């Protein structure tokens, strides 16, 4: 179990405000990208997010563009998990593939406020004195997350350290 400060946001937060498109072909390093995280949504986060903080959001977090830097930006601020009522499909997949944990918990954003602390365990979250069960990921998604993301998983495969599994890309 780990304790985390939360930043709380509403519904339909899109990737343009998480990481503006105008930077998408010029900022390259994860550190440069992370320095712009949430720039057009919440400058307080951009200036003040600390490693270990987590984001708690409403429905459809990460809608809009497929730009993966919207995950990179948050990940390299040291955010280990994003908890949302729901995620856009692309953002959810980008989280799994980058090894940052997407936790679907409808309604959590209504019971906590920015600056509160929550506790996260393997299969539940404690927030405002209430225990919320975390729904399990698919076997495939969990395997990629456990490997630290899709890139580390494929690195192991191409080094011959693991046998391809059906459902993780490149299985036979």
């Amino acid at each position, binding site marked *: 179990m780990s304790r985390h400060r939360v930043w709380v946001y509403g519904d339909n937060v899109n990737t343009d405000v998480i990481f503006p498109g105008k930077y998408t072909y010029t900022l390259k390093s994860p550190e440069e990208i992370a320095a712009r995280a949430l720039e057009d949504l919440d400058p307080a986060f951009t200036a003040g997010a600390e490693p270990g903080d987590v984001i708690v959001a409403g429905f459809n977090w990460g809608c809009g563009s497929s730009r993966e830097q919207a995950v990179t930006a948050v990940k390299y601020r040291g955010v280990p998990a994003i908890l949302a009522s729901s995620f856009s499909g692309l953002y959810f*997949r980008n989280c799994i593939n980058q090894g940052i944990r997407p936790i679907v918990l409808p309604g959590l954003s209504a019971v906590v406020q920015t600056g509160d602390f929550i506790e996260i365990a393997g299969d539940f979250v404690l927030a405002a004195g209430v225990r919320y069960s975390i729904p399990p990921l698919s076997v*495939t998604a969990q395997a990629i997350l456990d490997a630290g993301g*899709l890139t580390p998983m494929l690195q192991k495969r191409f080094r011959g350290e693991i046998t391809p599994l059906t459902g993780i890309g490149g299985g036979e």
Partner: protein
Amino acid sequence: MTGWTFAEKALARAAGVDAVRAGDVLDVRPDLIFSHDNTAAIRRIFEQIGAPRLARPDRMAITLDHAAPAPTSQHAANHAEIRRFVADHGVAHFFEVGRGICHQVISEEALILPGETIFGSDSHTTHFGWMGAFGMGVGRTEMAALWATGALWIRVPEAVQIVLEGRLQPGVTAKDVCLRLLGDLGMTGGQYRSIEFAGAGVASLPLDERPVIPNMMAEFGAMNAYFPPDEVVFAALNARRTRDYAPLYPDADADYAERHRLDVSAVEPLVALPHQPDHVVPVAQAQGKPVDQAFIGTCTGARYSDLAAAAQVVRGRRLRSRLIVIPASSEVLEQAARSGVLLDLIAAGAAVASPGCGPCMGNHLGVPAPNEATISTGSRNFRGRMGTADAPIYLSNPYVAAASAVTGCITHPGEFL
């Protein structure tokens, strides 16, 4: 047992298995994958992965479109890196600066066909539903994995059916149908779902306008979107295709999570207000709001019919706001040049730029100043989308955008048609 949705049929085919159901997770081998200006960044991930070579360079397409021609030396260096990659690895289909927007170019070139599966590192890859292909956007890491292995893990989506009936009124386009759906159903109803259209209203849509709806189903949260392909679609592709294909149609008793119905003959010109594409109102409710520039462009608003619609409105008139016109492809530009549409636009004072994405995501060619309002035929009006956080963006069809350029404020196109 119920029948199969389009998504179930298409992904079973792409995975090389007999049958799949919504919720199954499987490896899919797409018929074509593509990337654009993000190719250099994907190359860096690909090199980390350590694959010896590209799995299928013969089934890869790359366009330079998102910031093209390059606006800065950094963007130019990015393009140069992509050209080296294409040459080093023998990527089969490469389209230079000026050829146009990825979705439009790949469609024109018939590089993907009905019943096939296409993944692009671009959220609007749902676009290819116009021809009955399974098109899905992926992230950069996923595209690198596809380069390395030729396959990607997919959870087969549930499906939603939307039946279109009737025929569009004059001055109304497929953009309005899409805005009506977003206004009615919101931005989350399609989340991780296959949006499968049906009904006589599909065939009544002009071919040139059809891509708008599956493309903008990305704003509905869709994983993919689908129009049942008809003879008009086949005729457009048959002239250029280099392989055979077999279109797919969902079964009449397919299992849909939801069903919706829309009479397109009742749809009027609409506007999406800042800062969400589902903040949709009739033009009358936004009438008179000042606009500093109108933008006829992007993968949802710069085909020939869009340029012709704008030309019809501005022909012989003077403009009160800036009008930026960026055709979706070089073929669109050529057609507009031959027909006289381009001359009408230029004579009215439009700024016409090289085919590509233009200012859609704030890279160049029409980024607004703070507090300047834009009316755009694009797909997204999120805060900061066009590069300036405090610059409101309205979305509309090309008639409304052009009429607004004439008057300098949001205007119903009726009096101009």
